[in-house]
């Protein structure tokens, strides 16, 4: 880390517009750039890029809007995503690889494979998902900078 430790932790907030596929991936790209500038290890950046991309896509595919909060500290990175949307009926089922409720339009774009949440689970050290049907979904995950999940 090339900066002094006093600037940590810091927060960044990103707004995600549901249904807008044109800029899909732009938030995860921005987060990747931030972490690169801060000098985090490549492995940590790679895992964050995967997890934030999937989280961003979930809001775009299934919600009206969402907010992604990023907390950057020297020891860990934390992301909290809250959206207003259809929600998830059965969180455990949604976590299973291959389970998807995506419609044809989403699938044609190459999304909706039912891998998003399990991808997030794989690359993070902690993950929490709660949802209220027809209201929205709350997702948070943490990636440890040292001694993290090697995935």
């Amino acid at each position, binding site marked *: 880390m090339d900066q002094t430790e006093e600037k940590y932790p810091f927060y960044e907030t990103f707004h995600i517009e549901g249904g807008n596929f044109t800029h899909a991936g732009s938030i995860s790209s921005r987060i990747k750039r931030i972490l690169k500038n801060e000098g985090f290890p490549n492995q940590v950046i790679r895992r964050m890029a995967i997890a934030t*991309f*999937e989280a961003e896509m979930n809001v775009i595919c299934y919600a009206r809007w969402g907010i992604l909060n990023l907390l950057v500290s020297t020891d860990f990175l934390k992301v909290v995503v809250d959206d207003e949307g259809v929600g998830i009926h059965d969180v455990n089922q949604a976590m299973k690889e291959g389970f998807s409720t995506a419609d044809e339009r989403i699938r044609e*774009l190459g*999304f909706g*494979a039912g891998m998003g949440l399990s991808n997030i689970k794989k690359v993070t050290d902690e993950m929490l998902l709660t949802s209220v049907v027809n209201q929205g979904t709350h997702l948070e995950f943490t990636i440890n900078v040292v001694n993290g999940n090697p995935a």
Partner: protein
Amino acid sequence: MKLETLVQSFELEVKTGSDQLHQEVTGGYAGDLLSDVIAHSARGNVWITIQTHPNIVAVASLKDLAAIILAGGREPDPETLKKAAEEGIPLLISLLPAFELIGRLYQAGVPGIVSC
């Protein structure tokens, strides 16, 4: 193997990123499901797909892929071209269908992610 060698050997049309062709290709990955590519492709891979929408650029950029190769002569969406140019991602087109292209790339020594 350098990306420009692949461009020449396989007569790939370079749509964007012509200044990025000096990159070393670490291997290849194929798929049209973005989550699958996000999960399994590796840095420096060429990615063979038939998806043409702008989100493929986001995936390639996030995973530091060497290039996107659109199989079957598919043309990228205008927005995809714009984004790829902005991000400096080489976007290449092959007239070969995916299976033929991948088979020939593999034969030419571009490895997959599993070493055998």
